[in-house]
């Protein structure tokens, strides 16, 4: 896809051209279909297309309805920012427009003021009055917020991120400014676990989690090389050749989004989900909810009308790998084996 970057065009490797890594792709897609799933953490070694996939996702994103010219992408039916509330109060209604969802990147070197927003200096200089200048959390509302190397993020930034993620609201009280705006973002993080662990509170924030490893199949590795070389030498042609595939996938996502609410969640399905989580001794209700939502999104993406066994199974394996209880050093393999055996048992 092409992205405007200070006038010059930046080419991004297309999503559908990524070889393999199906779990990661489906994890991202499910979050587009149902943003309330709560994001995705991608764990894996270097050079396994983690960042490529997240950046490529942008082209597949659908449009959303948002208040016109609102920097916070307020949903006119949802929680409103101070600004929209004022407008609503004075004019009695809000105009909406369709905007394409975006992927916003949060760089490691970000400072606090740019994350949550601060006083607009230029406005203050010119007009002598205080005005709020939105930060990344503002633009991230109802969009994807992508943190590369999320485990290397500074603690004080993580704290702020967790605060607004928990409330869905960013409250700013600084430099004589008070401002409140909705900040419901879909958090996508990538990390290489060899570089250090993630704080448990942050880990828990991610709805889904996938682990990616390098592909061992020689043929697929050759294909990666072939595509990368083709993209490098002529990105324009490469994108063109992929465009219909890209459009098909984007269309499929939109259709799944539309069909989402028509898929019924029966007591039978809920029972199966709870069976899984309770046999794994998981705390809280978040795992149940995440499995339920992602199973529904999966079934919608697979163009079905009902949730089936394999939807639940796949959803559980995406939702639970980072929530399983284990001693800090117990092999990752062990816990997964246990989960897999429970999931396989379902089918029998």
């Amino acid at each position, binding site marked *: 896809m092409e992205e405007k*970057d*200070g006038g*010059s065009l*930046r080419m991004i490797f297309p999503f559908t051209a990524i070889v393999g890594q199906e779990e990661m792709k489906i994890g991202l897609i499910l979050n587009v279909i149902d943003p309330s799933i709560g994001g995705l953490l991608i764990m*894996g*070694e*270097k*050079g*396994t*297309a983690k*960042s490529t996939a997240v950046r490529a996702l942008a082209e597949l994103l659908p449009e959303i309805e948002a208040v016109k010219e609102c920097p916070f992408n307020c949903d006119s039916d949802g929680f409103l920012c101070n600004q929209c509330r004022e407008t609503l109060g004075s004019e009695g209604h809000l105009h909406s427009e369709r905007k394409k969802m975006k992927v916003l*990147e949060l*760089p*490691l*070197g*970000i*400072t*606090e*003021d*740019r994350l949550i927003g*601060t*006083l607009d*200096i*230029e406005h*203050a*200089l010119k*007009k*002598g*009055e205080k005005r709020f*200048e939105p*930060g*990344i959390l503002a633009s991230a509302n109802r969009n994807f917020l992508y943190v*590369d*190397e999320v485990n*290397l993020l*500074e603690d*004080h930034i993580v704290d702020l991120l967790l605060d607004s993620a928990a409330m869905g609201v960013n409250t700013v009280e600084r*430099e*004589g400014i008070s401002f409140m705006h909705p900040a419901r973002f879909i958090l996508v993080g990538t990390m290489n*676990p*060899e*570089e*250090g*662990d993630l704080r448990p509170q942050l880990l828990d924030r991610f709805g889904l989690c996938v682990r990616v490893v*390098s*592909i*061992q199949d*020689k043929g697929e*590795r*050759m294909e*990666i*090389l*072939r595509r*990368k*070389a083709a993209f*490098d*030498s002529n990105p324009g042609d490469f994108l063109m050749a992929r465009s219909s595939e890209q459009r098909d996938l984007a269309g499929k996502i939109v259709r799944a989004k539309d069909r989402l609410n028509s898929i019924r969640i029966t007591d039978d399905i809920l029972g199966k989900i709870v069976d899984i989580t309770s046999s794994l001794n998981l705390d809280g209700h978040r795992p149940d909810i995440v499995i339920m939502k992602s199973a529904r999104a999966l079934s919608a993406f697979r163009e079905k009308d009902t949730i089936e066994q394999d939807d639940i199974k796949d959803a559980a394996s995406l939702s639970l790998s980072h929530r399983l209880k284990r*001693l*800090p*050093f117990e092999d990752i393999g062990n816990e997964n084996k246990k989960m897999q055996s429970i999931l396989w048992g379902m089918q029998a």
Partner: protein
Amino acid sequence: MRFPDFVGHEDAKLALILNAIDPNCGGVLFVGERGSGKSTLSRLFKDVLPEGTPFIELPLNITEDVLLGGIDLEETIQSGRKVFQHGILDRAHSGIIYIDDVNLLSPEIIALILQVQGRGENIIEREGLTLRHTSRFILLASMNPEEGTLSPHLLDHFGMCVLWERLKETFERIEVVKKAAPEVFVCNDKGMGIDGGLKEKVLVCRSILKDITLTDEIRGYIARLCIENYVSGHRGDLFLFYACRAYATFYGYKEVTKKHVDEVLPLVLLHRRRILQQMEKEEHRHDEKKPSEQRSEKHEQNDTKTDRNDENTSVGSMGEGLKDFENRTRESHPREEVFELGDVFKTRRIVFRKDRADRSASGRRTKTKSKDKGGRYVKSVMKTRNDIAIDATLRAAAPFQKIRGRKEMLLIHDEDLRFKQREKKMGHLAVFVVDGSGSMGAQRRMAETKGAIQSLLMDCYQKRDMVSMIVFRKEKAEVVLPPTSSVENASKRLREIPVGGKTPLAAGLLEAYKLIKRVMFKSPQTRFLVMLITDGRANQSISEEPVGEEMEKISQLLRELRFTDYIVVDTEDKSRFIKTDFAREVASQIGADYYTIDNLKADYLSDIIKSRKTEKFGV
């Protein structure tokens, strides 16, 4: 001196040229001793690049705002709007960033550089500024492994790695001296057969690079090589691809051949192999092949090509002494065993006793407000210090400009001034020094010991300490795990420790000493806890001196280290009739707290009583 005049190190020069031709090659890391010419060659690299290519040397004390860019104080005050000051990453675009002693650079700065490099773009969200600009550069770095290692995931970012060995041949050495003083000697160009036209040649190569063909056979060959060498991720494949393509171009071929791939292979894969997996495999192979060992050695001698590659790749394991580690696994040793983990238990609270109080007060990791200008700018405060937070000061002054009657310059009053509050992480590093000698294998003591270490590791995990692990056995000690915060990795390494051979206890302690010195240099704030796990039967010296005297000397060194606590965990079986209690002696020698595995286990009752007391009396 010019680039082609540089004597020897043909592989280093080749690596640089390939990067000049195709920056996709991913940069070069030079590893070698001080004074071996790494920096000299790196600086000569300019000669190979087209005029005007930026070449920036990154100082080790660089701050985030200089690196990424930030707000320009003067301009902003003059003009009354936010003016961005370009950072190094902007100025280096389409050029070179050179980092001398990259292993001494703070990990936070390295992470920032690598993130921008990986993305090809610098996204700035700092001090009220939002900006993005493309930033593609060739990363060139050097390191001296004696001064500390670079973790594998950082190594992996470099497209190529070259090991600098000292020039051995007298002839070459003489050449070096001649070239260094050209006015004395008449120099004649040679080496690589390149003359003055190198710069032009690079330009030509760049223009035809994309026309070089690569068959599926070669792609398959690359993929196979990477799979066989346990290269993690797919970056190795890509770097290998770019490198061999640049190589073919440079030597005037229209199509890449296997030979070209072989030529660049050591440069690209040297630092990339998954060492442990590889070792395991070799160990297996070794076991199978034992009877035919002689034959295979002979075979290796005949096949010089494989021999060369082998040598190179094994040296590349880099985490000091890993070469020896690999060699060691190849040595046949009848009594070598790897024990599983024994029982894991909750340890009593012993870690970092001296500063537990302030740690618990501020959470898991201690942070210290830093006095100097180092550390990360966290927030602005209204206090008098000379580290002004420009953005915050401007914000404070901005609303009053109208009232104050600003004309051209901003009017900033004393009460507007804001200062930076910085924060430095005060690290805690637990260094496990583990005895892997044969005596530890008796009655499966090692299994129990590993259980104990695992328990200590869990404690570190809960406290978010960094860990490192040193194993000593046979003739020497080695760092099997450089300092890391991934305790999971530590646990992985722990499982893999084999047992067998003599006990070079002094070597283990010396290695710990060197490691601590290195870390201190890099982050002076760090506190250390050395956990020596041994039965104390030192019986192998590293010098000519007797074991006892050697131990005395090293203990002296250790006692002099600042911010370092020691504990000794005695693994001797105390239920047996004959006990030596050697470890207890070692403990008193280095001033350590002494524990046996049994009294290491948390005594819940006494702990509870202790904590009650503390509550009651507020001790």
